[in-house]
């Protein structure tokens, strides 16, 4: 008998393939030409525009929107990609509501910003659909640089280095490139195999040799890379997951949200992804929201995000919170996990209720038990397997300037490096800027 939303336990195929396909459709369908023209017309072409300042990669947003408005979306794309080579993915996954669109003067004036993210997607999709790669390599410098990690930071760094005429060896531990773009983002934000398509498009610059399945510390070592290359960039992300310290030795039905998300992204029609009937996601970030919403879209009957602080402290934006709520996810605030109930398989999570008083989290003394047959941990990731000799700061690789580590000739950027938000767009900026710094150091 096929499973349905009331089937107990963690099972696959709660919904039929057609329903799942509809549930996982593009969250923001692309603009058609007319919609793009109307949206672009709203931009005021502000002087020294606040949206540019709010973008970690500093895209010239008014210029690209004007280029869309004047019927030149390919030129708009080039403007975007000159600052942010992963502008296509960022258009899909950036929390624009806390970046460019929050800064838009029309957000202040009317509460309705110019839809910058969707316009950016319109431009970049148009260019990529035309198969155009608008950048060319400079004359060869004869320098060879190792980039470890083919996520946003590594890709941005590799592309910029290749453009400057350097040869790049790009390594990644996984069988595919893309990093979190490929493994770590909700499927409905990047449909149609976009992460791989963008990666293939990016590599068209030439001069980048990819080496997948090559993990730092296992297959390659920093010392060897330093010997064989003129410089090394580390964009290795955060491979570890923070532990959930609670009582109870329950393991069945308990998993890391990042693994759940990665499995969803690598699945075809997603009918093979098991999900609980009653799912509890512990955490308050984007990973928690991505996992919870997708659990619901797979057909879980009840999904709860439990966060130990109040709504205002949640790192997922209000937009993301509302998205989760609109899909039927329950948001539970001020609930700190204390114990996993069950005997082998998880049956419930016990929470101590909290209060935020003057910035301090206090227990109220009350507890709640939320029934659960699946628990997803989304309480943050950590650096895993840092090469010896590299100084850390706050659990991440310490950097100065444009990503210089404590080791000469080694740069770092993206989530693994200290400083900056753990966002795709921030990683792109750090990778790009490190590339510029590497270039300047090698040829300076």
């Amino acid at each position, binding site marked *: 008998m096929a499973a349905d939303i009331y089937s107990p336990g963690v099972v696959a195929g709660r919904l039929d393939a057609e329903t799942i396909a509809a549930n996982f459709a593009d969250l923001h369908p692309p603009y058609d030409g*007319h919609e793009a023209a109307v949206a672009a017309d*709203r931009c005021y072409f502000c*002087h020294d525009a606040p949206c540019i300042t709010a973008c970690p990669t500093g895209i010239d947003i*008014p*210029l690209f929107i004007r280029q869309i*408005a*004047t019927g030149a979306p390919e030129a708009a794309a080039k403007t975007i990609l000159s600052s942010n080579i992963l502008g296509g993915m960022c258009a899909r996954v950036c929390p624009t509501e806390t970046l460019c669109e929050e800064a838009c003067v029309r957000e202040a004036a009317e509460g309705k910003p110019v839809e910058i993210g969707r316009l950016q997607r319109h431009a970049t999709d148009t260019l990529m659909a035309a198969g155009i790669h608008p950048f060319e390599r400079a004359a060869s410098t004869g320098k060879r640089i190792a980039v470890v990690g083919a996520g946003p930071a590594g890709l941005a760094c590799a592309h910029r280095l290749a453009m400057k005429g350097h040869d790049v060896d790009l390594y990644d531990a996984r069988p595919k490139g893309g990093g979190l773009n490929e493994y770590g983002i909700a499927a409905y934000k990047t449909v149609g195999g976009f992460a791989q398509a963008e990666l293939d498009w990016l590599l068209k610059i030439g001069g980048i040799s990819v080496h997948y399945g090559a993990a730092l510390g296992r297959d390659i070592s920093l010392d060897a890379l330093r010997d064989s290359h003129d410089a090394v960039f580390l964009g290795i992300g955060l491979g570890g997951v923070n532990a959930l310290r609670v009582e109870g030795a329950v393991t069945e039905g308990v998993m890391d949200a990042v693994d759940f998300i990665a499995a969803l992204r690598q699945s075809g029609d997603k009918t093979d992804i098991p999900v609980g009937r009653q799912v509890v996601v512990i955490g308050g970030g984007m990973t928690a929201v991505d996992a919870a919403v997708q659990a619901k879209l797979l057909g879980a009957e009840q999904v709860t995000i439990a966060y130990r602080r109040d709504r205002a402290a949640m790192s997922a934006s209000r937009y993301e919170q509302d998205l989760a709520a609109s899909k039927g996810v329950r948001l539970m605030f001020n609930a700190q996990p204390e114990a996993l109930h069950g005997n082998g398989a998880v049956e419930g999570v016990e929470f101590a209720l909290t209060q935020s008083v003057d910035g301090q989290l206090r227990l109220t003394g009350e507890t709640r038990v939320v029934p659960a047959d699946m628990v997803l941990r989304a309480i943050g990731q950590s650096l895993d397997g840092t090469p010896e000799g590299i100084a850390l700061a706050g659990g991440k690789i310490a950097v100065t300037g444009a990503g210089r580590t404590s080791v000469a000739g080694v740069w770092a950027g993206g989530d693994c490096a200290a400083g900056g938000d753990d966002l795709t767009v921030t990683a792109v900026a750090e990778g790009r800027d490190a590339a510029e710094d590497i270039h300047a150091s090698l040829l300076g």
Partner: protein
Amino acid sequence: MADLTTDFLGIKSPNPFWLASAPPTDKAYNVERAFKAGWGGVVWKTLGEAGPPIVNVNGPRYGAIWGADRRLLGLNNIELITDRPLEVNLREIKQVKRDWPDRAMIVSIMVPCEEQAWKAILPLVEETGADGIELNFGCPHGMSERGMGSAVGQVPEYIEMVARWCKQNTRMPVIVKLTPNITDIRYPARAAMKGGADAVSLINTISSITSVNLDSFSPEPSIDGKGSHGGYCGPAVKPIALNMVAEIARDPETRGLPISGIGGVTTWRDAAEFLALGAGTVQVCTAAMTYGFKIVQEMISGLSQYLDEKEMTLAELTGRAVPNVTDWQYLNLNYVTKARIDQDACIKCGRCYAACEDTSHQAIWMKPGRVFEVNDAECVACNLCVDVCPVEDCITMERLAPGSVDPRTGRVVEAEYGNWTTHPNNPAAKAAE
């Protein structure tokens, strides 16, 4: 990236985008900002003769009309020529030209209609190293009351006379800037050519009142309750300017006379249209005043992308549309089209129906369920339904194949070109057979 380098009268500029003589080109400060932003050249704001500086009003100098979302569609101004001392302008022109030798530096001039006045100023301008001069025969407000600006531009004999004085008294190329406030733009253009001018630039602004305050009953912009007509410019005037440029480009007497196109150029596309109608460069003011100098980046990238896509050089674009501008009498009367409504795209607003039923040819049926269809037996292909339809490409005009019967006239559509000059209804028609 297509090469946008422009050679206009031997004056080189990195692109055809010049700033028109206007407030944005009144000072070295502005012009240097413009050059930094990428503008190919400027026409320095009009210089007057030496002496006490020009006085401007101390109230509003500009009025405007807007779209509902405050998009500026038309701008009107009553500012006069430069109100800074002549020697200050000359000094700054010289310095900017020295610092930016690759950019076009044209100096606009307006002095009284006396040869001595022109003879006095021309050597001073020449001494700055400027690339050329533009004679301001266009401004319709203020200076025209003193016998300058459009007061000269409205009299072809004066245009010819002053152009000749200038050609006789300077080695610099002479561009005559024309006023649109005349009945037929070809006459002043011909006069400029006859006087020896190297080029014309057009259009200057159009006499206008932007609006009337219905509480104070003052025209806008209002100076202490009174208003004076200003010069209208911006996107709203582009169609008027395009026509005037085309008229000069195709006039047998002025064909080949270099033109600098002006009037509502806001995007690369506007510029390309002026170029296609025969302009060698374009001049911009209102768009820069609305959005800042940075817009030139979009113009440069857009025009070069367009040229790349068309595999065309800038020189090949210039004048490309001129042969297609013709007289009504030569339009093909055997080109028969009918409106077609895309039912999938139709949002059922009924504007096409109202327009056709009330004001045109009753050629659209409104059927049950708000379905709108064209009655070919009545459709004269006027295009009004296309123009009022809010959905782009929902209504299109499709040509009837030669050999088919036009249900409106009952006649077979002929394949051959046929125009009014040979039409049987034309009493002056020459015998076709």
